[in-house]
């Protein structure tokens, strides 16, 4: 059933997978908000490692730059500005938790079963190309130029909107 060779890539995959899952689980289960952001940053870094394994180094380092760096710092910045002394401790709800656990296990079983039984078409050898950064750039500025520019306009509008909202509240 588990017919895989133990290669360096396989080991690296498992290390990154453990980082991502541990980060995601800790993100939910930790109590202090700053700790949550750190575990989320760890999950982002693990994802970047996955992209490197997939030969997508441009996406990988953009992931580190934007998510692990900028977004995490921004969130910590926001959190520090607010006071978080009395984090509410939720009362345990046994029935609710049991049902949630059963549901999660069922979902896992379903996904695991369908992935194991699925018949993947072997989709030819993947060609990472010489310079995928160049390829991404060319795609963005030729075939996808309109969506790309629209997206940047959307971000600018959101940015200006946020400033306008914040200004209104400050006045």
């Amino acid at each position, binding site marked *: 059933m588990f017919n895989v060779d133990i290669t360096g890539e396989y080991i690296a995959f498992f290390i990154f997978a453990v980082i991502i899952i541990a980060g995601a689980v800790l993100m939910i289960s930790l109590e*202090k908000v*700053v700790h949550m952001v750190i575990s989320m940053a760890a999950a982002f870094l693990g994802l970047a490692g996955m992209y490197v394994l997939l030969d997508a180094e*441009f996406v990988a*380092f953009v992931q580190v730059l934007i998510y*692990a*760096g900028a977004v995490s710092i921004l969130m*910590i*910045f926001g959190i*520090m500005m607010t006071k978080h002394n009395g984090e509410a401790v939720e009362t345990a709800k046994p029935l609710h938790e049991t049902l949630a656990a059963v549901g999660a296990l069922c979902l896992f079983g379903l996904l695991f079963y369908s992935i194991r039984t699925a018949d993947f078409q072997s989709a030819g050898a993947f060609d990472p190309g010489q310079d995928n*950064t160049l390829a991404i750039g060319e795609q963005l500025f030729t075939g996808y130029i309109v969506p790309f520019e629209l997206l940047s306009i959307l971000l600018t509008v959101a940015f200006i909107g946020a400033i306008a909202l914040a200004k209104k509240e400050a006045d």
Partner: protein
Amino acid sequence: MGAWLNEPLTWGSALILFLWAALFLLIVLGFVTYAIYYERKVIGWMQLRIGPNRVGPLGLFQTVADIFKLLIKEDTIPRKADRLLFIIAPALAFIPSFTVLAVIPYTEKLYFADLNVGLLYYVALSGITTLAMVLGGWASNNKYALLGGMRSAAQMISYEVPLVISIVGVILLSGSLNLRDIVAAQDGGWFWNWNLFPQIIGFIVFFIAAVSELNRTPFDLPEAESELVAGYHVEYSGFRFAFFMLAEYVYVYAIAALTTVLFLGGWHAPAPFLDFVPGIIWFLLKFAFIVFSLFWIRATFPRVRVDQLMSLGWKVLLPVALLNVFLTALYLELFVK
């Protein structure tokens, strides 16, 4: 180095790569030790003092003694600090500073990683150190440390934007994010082929933003000792404090090497008849000059105010960097194509 990097990874080659990394770490530590000594000497001379001259001949062992003192100091962790983050933060600050050095090429043959997106790798990983500084400041549970951490985050985010955009001109000229290709693109024999002259606007923006990223005077607000006691590392002592300082000086190394590679032609000689001097000597000379300039700036400039800092970053450097990208693109479109 290239031959080893492209071999399949066996235990033997992994050991060789590990030993190279360890040797490189020792070289970097040696650089940091003597950069601190040299900085104190240079600033001393500029202020008509002698500088350290007691420990060893010419004071050469002063930094060694200082580091030894730091290592044997009592390691204190404030009782109300967030223990785990307080311990992690110094390591988290240092690790990216050392890993970014992997992509710097020293000569045509001597480099540690031939990465396709080298420049992006540098910029992305150096952002993690900011996270560590903020965390260190927050975990200390001290208002001065928190203020220092906040300032450092605000400053480093604001200046990372012009820093990255000022490099875009260089990337446009050389058509690659690979630092080796960027140096190769500056090969014309003469010094005016270096990116310094066609990219003079980019270079000025880059250098100002780099000094700011390093948290050095005139932009050392995160550790302004007269306002914040010491900044984000006020609660740190001994070994952990040494790690923060180490990270800062390793970034001096990294920025000086990056400036050399991006703007000063890396290992290329300034004139064709000087080609007989090996490339590594040219690299080291340019590198040493940049490091000296950083100390020079520290000795001669007053600190800027925090509000001036932000408006300089966003209202001056960013538009100038964007203008530089526009001019470079226009030049390439009109004259090169």
